[in-house]
């Protein structure tokens, strides 16, 4: 299985590098460009949020990023220490219902084909998935 595993410690540059690497991984695995960009977008949003609001406040912060490609799906898992943050909570039924104040979160939710959350031992674990191939243009 094609896979990328990275640990982010403290900077948004690390986040951006991981997002770019994730896109390359997905593209090389044959995913549509728009679907690869969705993974890069979600990685940047979720990891930057964890870095800014969560992990930086911990004594030994790190954000674990995993991206893997299955036959028909692209998957991203972000695991980070920090206060509880469930991106699936209060998920509206319509994209248009999101306010601008939550731009990053609304992008993550709006561009996900599947989104799940778990909290284990003080760590937020979010999994974001999209189909490898988008809708026909």
């Amino acid at each position: 299985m094609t896979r990328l595993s990275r640990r982010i410690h403290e900077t948004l540059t690390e986040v951006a590098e991981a997002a770019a690497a994730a896109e390359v991984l997905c593209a090389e695995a044959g995913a549509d460009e728009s679907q690869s960009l969705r993974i890069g977008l979600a990685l940047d949003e979720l990891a930057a949020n964890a870095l800014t609001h969560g992990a930086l406040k911990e004594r030994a912060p790190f954000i674990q990023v995993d991206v893997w490609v299955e036959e028909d799906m692209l998957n991203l898992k972000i695991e980070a220490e920090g206060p509880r943050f469930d991106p699936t909570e209060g998920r509206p039924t319509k994209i248009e219902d999101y306010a601008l104040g939550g731009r990053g979160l609304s992008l993550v939710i709006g561009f996900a084909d599947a989104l799940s959350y778990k909290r284990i031992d003080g760590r937020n674990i979010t999994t974001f998935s999209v189909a490898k191939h988008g809708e026909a243009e």
Partner: protein
Amino acid sequence: MTGIMRTTEGDVSVLKLLEQKYFSNSRVLFQEHLLAAEAASPKKLIVLDLANAILITSGPLGALRASYRRVDAQGGRIVAAGGGEFAVRVLSFAANFIDHYPSVEDAMADIAPKSA
């Protein structure tokens, strides 16, 4: 390449995105160039030329939102033009306060029309 290039055409500041992808670490870059663009346009007219950009995340879009508020409060306008399909989709989703035009020329014609 610094990521963004600023030029002035008449009363309008034009910011051209030189790279394809702008992640959360580009927020400060956007802030700096947007502030410079505002200062360079007395009428506070700004065109953000997405050019070849295919991805912009919420970090730089937050800087765009702040600039929009400042410009709007002074009676100006900030609009976007061009860009890749996915970038435009992100913009319409997370920055729908910004009008988008197919080209810089279209944007210029609307915000700073030349008198006949």
